[in-house]
């Protein structure tokens, strides 16, 4: 199942995106996260576009995957995470 968002998800998402693209701006990544969570998983939003334009390491599907995987860490599907 999906999970609601906690502070850990936000910080992990920023950390993971920065891990892939060190030049990413934290506020931009947060805004992109808001767009993805709001339903725009095709990265057509202003901030998702900006994050991806400055990061050739990942594409839109991978950005969504990172968010999905991190969210699942906090949804209680796995013991002790």
């Amino acid at each position: 199942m999906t999970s609601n968002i906690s502070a850990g998800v936000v910080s992990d998402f920023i950390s993971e995106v920065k891990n892939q693209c060190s030049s990413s701006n934290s506020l931009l990544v947060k805004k992109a996260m808001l767009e993805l969570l709001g339903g725009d998983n095709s990265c057509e939003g202003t901030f998702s576009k900006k994050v991806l334009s400055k990061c050739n390491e990942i594409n839109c599907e991978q950005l969504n995957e990172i968010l999905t995987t991190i969210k699942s860490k906090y949804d209680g599907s796995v013991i002790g995470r």
Partner: protein
Amino acid sequence: MKAMNLLVLVFTLFSINLVSAETSLNSLDERLTDLELKSITDRIKTDMELSSFYGNIQEKNSTVKDGEATHKITKNTFKIGFSGEVNKEVKLYSSFAVNHLGNDDFQTNKTPSFERTEGESGSRVLLRSAYFDYRPNRGPVILTMGRLPTTNGPPEHMRSSRSRQGTYPVTNYSLPLDGAALTVDWHNMLKTNFSLITRTVYTVGSGNYDADPNEGTRIDPKRPTEVTDSSVGFSQMLEIENRFSKGQRLLFIAQYSHYDFSAFRSAVTQGGILESAAQSNSTLAALMAANGGEDFNTYRLLADNKDMVKVRIATLYSEFQNMFGTRFDSYLSYTRSVTDPRANIKARVLASNNTNATLQALYPVGTEINLGGFLRSERAEGNRYLLGARYKFKKLDVGLEYVTSTGYAIQTDLYSDDFLHFGSYPGDIYHGYANYHLGKNFTLRAGHFSVEHYAVTRSVTTSDYFGRVHASYLGFNVSL
């Protein structure tokens, strides 16, 4: 005078800017305070998921219906989960599921059989998980207790294009288990640049109904005070996860599980007993054919020892996403199981419902049929290999899986959301699937299974039996 006017103008503009900045700051502060209050008052988080399958299963050389059978299947599952932070060190999780399986033979189980798998074949709400995680001082050790999330594990999420749904790989074990676990996160202690987790899980439970523990037939009528022990299990997991450049992600799990299952005092099952016996008895097979190929009797299963079976299961599982920066994912699993039966199991006829008069005369109410040991009469060993790959287009994931077995591997995916449970069939299984993402958390699914098996499991025993199964399905999954 001009200079004075200019000074007044500058001062006025400056004052307006100050007022404007203060208003903006107040507005920002108010919004932040609202957000903080909201995050504190939203103590319980809720999530939901609805999934459905529609399809049919064709059996060639089936054990029922004169060797060939087609079943139309619908399967609807609804799950709801709640979670929340009790404090900075304790988190509480729970999830419930209701699952309705229907086909052209039945709509739902009239008589419950095994409580813990009932969620897969009935309409009742089942508690999938209810547990807490306690992480003292936000350190590396996490204590978990309650009904643990030990169902729907990897690679079920790969073939359904979701995030990971459970702790144990379904190729190792999948049932809702009550118990305690100790997880150690070694990442910070060893300063590794990848996630390294070990997990020790102790589980306890029994196959009896919680609602009527006093009922049923005791194992040994000569010792009526003796009751069945609880089934006990230990599982040790090692989990490594790493992310590389270009979105690459590698997950590796090694798990060894050791279960001592106690015997059921009584378990009621519908049919399946004479079908198994007919596979090695041509006279009975002819009588079964005259009975429409199915066994309509109701049986009570009895065991002559408190310990029913000892099971050891070892699994190596890995998944590699976005391999080498491509859109390919792969997942592999190897499982070896050893099953040591400790009890002889009998089926007693509770209700004689077969239409054939000779069958009725041969198996009247009270007749006991010897089934031998759990799974097989002797120690059973088996291996199961799974190889899966998928390619992700922009909105479409297309995958292929191959499963093959040797020997008599125990069925591990007892609790699974799959249309067909892989572990039910010793033999070769091919599964092709496509998942189309209509939008965020809304996926359409389609797939086809092709199975060639050399044995079948009916009730609690596995018999040698060659057959083919083809299954196709359409479905959807929507979650919030």
